[in-house]
């Protein structure tokens, strides 16, 4: 459904506030929205997965190929000859400390995820649940801040960081992504707004503060959205290229994407090591996804509300 949908609102069934119920996760229960049977689901899913993995497979396969074998007219799947040289070159090329880049990326990403979840969730609660002067204007400001391309903002930011002595530090890569993230705030706000208000109202009647409601009702109910934000933040920060490229100049402070950018210049691309690096870089992302995905599929656990 998109904006073009002009059906009269009353024709869409107005969602009634659901009653808090005990949900013990009955496996047989129909999951929200399922509209086709298991067999058809499998067929479509496998098809989608096959379409999805093409470039990944090429990346993986290229990382085991010799330089002249990577670019061919019709990509061949199996490396022949098979080589680990690209990986060896990646971690030991005499100029780039790639393992160090992994470490830098890891610590920056972990800090940003923790910080961003806190700041965005707080903000989202304010936007979704409280009414106060300036709220809508502030939200508009958050959205508007997405509408100017980053590449122009970087100039004033860069000179400000130079004056503050923060160039060639990790500050510009950690603090702004934590405290200035519209996406996360918006995502959590939208999710919070689907949580029935009856919960808060009951708690307010009992004399709970808003902070208490936020911590003990909203956050536990929002694990799917929080996990989603954590995964997307991981992807976003782990793969951030422009920030580290611009703000860092000491090779020992570089992150993985900047390290990989070395293999690609205007004139030529060293596909082998580049794809080896990209393959290594994708592993943590997949692990985070796999770890977080039990939350996407958990459903609202409504036990323990009352």
């Amino acid at each position, binding site marked *: *459904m998109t904006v073009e949908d*002009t059906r009269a*609102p009353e024709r*869409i069934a*107005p*969602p009634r506030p659901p009653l808090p*119920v005990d949900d013990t996760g009955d496996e047989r229960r*129909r*999951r*929200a*929205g*399922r509209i086709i049977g*298991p067999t058809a689901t499998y067929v479509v*899913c496998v098809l989608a*997965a096959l*379409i*999805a993995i093409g*470039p990944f497979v*090429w*990346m993986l396969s*290229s990382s085991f190929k010799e330089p002249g074998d990577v670019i061919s*007219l*019709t*990509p061949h799947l199996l490396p022949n000859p098979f080589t680990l040289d690209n990986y060896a070159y990646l971690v030991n090329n005499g100029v780039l400390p790639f393992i160090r880049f992994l470490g830098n990326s890891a610590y920056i990403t972990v800090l940003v995820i923790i910080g961003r979840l806190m*700041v965005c969730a707080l*903000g989202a609660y*304010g936007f979704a649940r409280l*009414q*106060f002067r300036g709220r809508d204007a*502030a*939200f508009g400001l*958050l959205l*508007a*801040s997405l*509408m*100017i*391309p980053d*590449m122009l*903002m970087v100039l*004033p930011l860069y000179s400000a960081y130079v004056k503050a002595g923060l160039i060639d530090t990790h500050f510009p890569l950690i603090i702004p992504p*934590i*405290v*200035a993230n519209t996406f996360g*705030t918006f995502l959590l706000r*939208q999710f919070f*707004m*689907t*949580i029935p*208000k009856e919960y808060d109202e009951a708690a*307010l009647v009992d004399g709970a503060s808003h902070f208490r409601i936020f911590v003990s009702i909203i956050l536990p109910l929002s694990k*799917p959205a929080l996990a989603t934000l954590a995964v*997307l933040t991981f992807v976003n920060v782990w793969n951030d290229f422009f920030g580290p490229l611009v703000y860092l100049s000491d090779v020992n402070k570089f992150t993985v994407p900047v390290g990989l950018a070395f293999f*690609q210049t205007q004139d030529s691309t060293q596909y082998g090591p580049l794809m080896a690096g*990209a393959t290594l*870089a*994708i592993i943590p992302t997949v692990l985070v*996804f796999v770890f977080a995905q039990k939350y996407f*599929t958990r*459903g*609202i656990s409504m036990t323990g509300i009352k």
Partner: protein
Amino acid sequence: MTAAQTLRVRDPATADQRRGGRRRNLRGWMFIGPVVLGTLLFNVIPVLPTLVTSFTDWDGLAAPKFTGTANYKEMFSGQDPLFGKSLINTAIYTIGYVPVGIIIGIALAVLVNNRLRGMAVIRALIFLPYVTSLVAVGVVSRWVFSDQYGVINAVLASFGITGPHWLGEPGSAMAAVIVTAIWANMGFNMIIVLAGLQGVPETLIEAATLDGAGRFSRFFHVTLPFLTPTIFLLLILQTIGSFQVFALVLVMTGGGPGDGTYVYIYHLWYEAFSLRRMGYASALAIVLFVVLLAVTWIQNRLSKRWVFYQ
């Protein structure tokens, strides 16, 4: 609750509105303070110089030279045909990508939102394109859409159809970019909708089932209304993102053939960093800002008709 509110939500505890006004304002700002301040500091204040430089001739190195509205005049007087062309291309891309991307995201999320065996792997695989190296995406997509050696034309040929020279014709090149964008972002849309789906109360679905509603009816009348806040989020963010599409175009077509996939940010980037016309690029950014503000405002107004909040 017929017309649901979107950017405006009712607070349940507003009985003591007048008396507790100041306290309520303070409390609200304590919650949103950090993100609003951070955004002001790092995302809004750095934009302000752009507004100023948009009225100058500036190469990013020497001092800017004030030129009044010359940059804007250049845009709107037709002296820069690529301004209009890139804006149109961007609009085509946005219209082609955003709705289909969201629908596919919803379809995939609904599809994988179950505990069937192996689903965890499938979900991870569908998410892969979103995290795969863009360089790899570029190489493979150029091969997939290759005229003579590509996968798509090979499939078409097996049905006796001669496929187009995808990346060689402006229209089909844009189609190829859109398809690749949908493909690359399907995992992103999927996991956001997936999170949204977890908010759909199972009780309602069961109630609908007991009422004899079929699968499709249940989906459209129970699940979908609950997803509207998520869809609204995707619509707003993907539209803003689509107007700023750049990297994918760069790796797939380089804006070509001719000006066939020459999108707005490509133009801005080219003006700013290739021609070193930072002043003009700033003006382009301001116009983009105004366009996006208008589009988002309209989307927000319209959303009151179809987005449901609790």
